[in-house]
């Protein structure tokens, strides 16, 4: 499990301007709905945007702190 604050911090490490919303879907702190809005997504395809977020969260995935994510990405205006 991982705290929602820690998820926000990991994403902002690679995308400092990111507006991040995290929702703990199951109450077990390992299945999350995550929404990320960032200018870093500009010019990227949806798959590339998702890969950017997954790269930021790689360590938390690898060590099992995160089991599943439903992800929504938006390009900041």
């Amino acid at each position, binding site marked *: 499990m991982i705290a929602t604050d820690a998820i926000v911090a990991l994403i902002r490490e690679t995308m400092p301007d990111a507006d991040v919303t995290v929702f703990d879907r199951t109450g077990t702190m390992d299945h999350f709905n995550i929404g990320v809005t960032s200018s870093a997504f500009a010019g990227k395809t*949806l*798959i590339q945007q*998702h890969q950017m977020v*997954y790269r930021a969260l790689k360590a938390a995935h690898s060590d099992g702190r995160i089991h599943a994510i439903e992800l929504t990405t938006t390009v900041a205006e």
Partner: protein
Amino acid sequence: MSEQFKQEIEAEVGANKILVYGKGTKDAPRCGFTLETIQFFNNFGYPFEVVDVLENMPKREALSQMTDWPTLPKVFIDGTFYGDTDVLGPMAEKGELQTILKNAFGSEAPKTTINLH
């Protein structure tokens, strides 16, 4: 990354226009997201394959490294990686996915073109 798994994955991706790596099989999915992905493609009507990698950790690791994508399911269409339904859903809403599938199969989905008369 094991070269053997990489070659196996490339062969599977090359052999199937739509390929889903998931947890469980088409008939017996063992994960809600895998089930959701199967239902998603059932709605399109094109043939697709599901490869169960639930118990195959080395292959899952190879897949994650190849795609920069840590979770299952993982969807490949016509050799290109498209992530999961979080990506494919919005692409379908915009009509982009329909174009990709049409180009991959060279025709409309069987479900929409079958003439029953």
